[in-house]
């Protein structure tokens, strides 16, 4: 292979890559940025200004929605970690052979089913005429039907459900790589369960914890279906607000500004997480 041939192949491989990313990801975002900094002053005349961003900060409803979305996403991430960790530990350390791979595959199951179907399942279970409400009435535990949908607890539960897979998989793979003899050694030296967990297991699984948390956080922040369907109109989710601006109100300028604000919040929190843990984006996102 001579070098001019190599160069030609490189160009041939580079051009689809650049076309794909350039035309479908980078230029659209640049275009959207320009849209977000223009203001309609008269029909068909626009001026460059930060009015859209100013509107976000002066209207409490908007920034409350964003703050709430970010807060709930962080909470969902933490809860997912707490719920998933014992399960991942059980799969990685307590089980062997076939049972282990079956349970692990079972964890992946919801991923194979559309998010729409999963959310539909929760709606059938939780709504006023749903399975849980009817069963409780039949058992005589409650007198009338109860509406379990359209509240924050349900939205949180749905978000955790959707995120579970992305936490369990990295946790299982890091815990798998922890040598059992280290735990046994800790036990032999008289360590309690809690101290073994704190001194050996958690430090070892830190890379898995970080990458799981980052992926879950990003997915939750950008989630649309679960908060809208399980939370209804009162869900106040920021992606729902973006949809409203674009499709319902047709205020594209403000909607574009909202998109950038969401991207900024998302990347800031992810960047902070990476900085605090000393990892890179490539090592966390590419694995999952």
């Amino acid at each position, binding site marked *: 292979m001579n070098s001019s041939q190599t160069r030609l192949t490189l160009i041939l*491989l580079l051009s*689809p890559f650049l076309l794909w990313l350039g035309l479908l990801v980078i230029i659209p975002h640049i275009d959207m940025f320009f849209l977000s900094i223009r203001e309609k002053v008269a029909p068909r005349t626009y001026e460059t200004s930060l009015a859209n961003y100013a509107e976000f900060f002066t209207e409490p409803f908007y920034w409350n929605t964003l703050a709430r979305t970010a807060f709930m996403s962080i909470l969902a991430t933490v809860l997912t970690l707490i719920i998933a960790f014992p399960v991942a530990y059980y799969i990685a350390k307590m089980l062997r052979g076939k049972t282990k791979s079956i349970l692990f595959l079972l964890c992946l199951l919801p991923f*194979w089913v559309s998010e729409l179907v999963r959310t539909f399942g929760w709606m059938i279970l939780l709504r006023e005429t749903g399975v849980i409400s009817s069963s409780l009435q039949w058992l005589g535990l409650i007198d009338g039907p109860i509406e379990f949908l359209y509240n924050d607890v349900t939205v949180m539960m749905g978000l955790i459900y959707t995120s579970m897979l992305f936490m369990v998989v990295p946790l299982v793979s890091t815990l798998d790589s922890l040598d059992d003899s280290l735990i046994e050694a800790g036990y032999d030296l008289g360590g309690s369960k809690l101290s073994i967990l704190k001194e050996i297991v958690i430090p070892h699984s830190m890379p898995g914890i970080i990458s799981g948390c980052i992926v879950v956080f990003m997915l939750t922040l950008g989630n649309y279906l679960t908060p809208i369907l399980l939370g209804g109109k009162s869900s106040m989710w920021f992606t729902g607000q973006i949809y409203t601006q674009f499709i319902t109100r047709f205020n594209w300028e403000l909607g574009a500004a909202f998109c950038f604000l*969401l*991207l900024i919040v998302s990347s800031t929190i992810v960047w902070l997480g990476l900085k605090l843990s000393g990892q890179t984006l*490539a090592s966390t996102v590419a694995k999952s």
Partner: protein
Amino acid sequence: MLPTIPRSNRYNWSYQLYIFLFFVYLIAPLVVVASFAFNDSLFPSLPWKGFTWDWFINDTQPKLGLFHDRSLMNGIGVSFFVACCVTGLSIAIGTSNAFLFERYEFRFKQFAYILLLLPLVIPGVILGISILVFSNTLANGVEDHIGWDLEFLRPGLLLVVLGQFAFITTIATLVISARLKKFDRSLEEAAYNLGASRFEVLRTITLPYLRPAMLGAGVVAFLMSFENFNTTLMLVGSDAPLTIAMYDRLKEGSTPVLNAVSLFLMLGSALLALISILVQKEK
């Protein structure tokens, strides 16, 4: 903490109970969706009124079954078409990207790798919107300056395909790169020494080696495209893919025909999962 370390019975029991409850939580919504597809009632809720196949095969209102429901069947067709396009495109570009990142050194490669991962970091809703905005700018620009109305740049199937392709390609690239990384290059060198041309080596050695990863990436791409909602929602025109058609029904409140179509989706995914497991075995 380990099976080899003695634990109290109570600890054992409570741990196993927790795991059991976790899996109930994981599976409950899926079981419920599937079972109400066979309930002989107009609403997907209790009480159970007996087993029926009506939600699949009945052809009259109000119990219109899935196979006679025009809009849902049309949705399946549209989704299938979109998923095939996205799968083909993303395997092609994904393979080319994999070669680019595994075989070549170029300036700003690190930076390009970050860009490659970008579509995974951007929420689907925003990715969809940005493409909508850009295609709208293009269409308006062309209309204002040349006077052509480019219909294909307005929301519709082409934009849906492009929107899904934008992020699914990243996933395909990662899957195919992972296998290309493990490739033993001495195999290629041997073929060169035996007088093969570059194209022959690619066709007879490297691509057959990559085939399981390309098929695996194809299965994942097909599935992600078929099930995608967020990006599609922003770019959809008059032809609604299945997830959008289902979402519209879901908001109105629907008969168990939605359960029937959900069950259909689950079976389809299970079939694809089986294929991908078989493909993995082939390695």
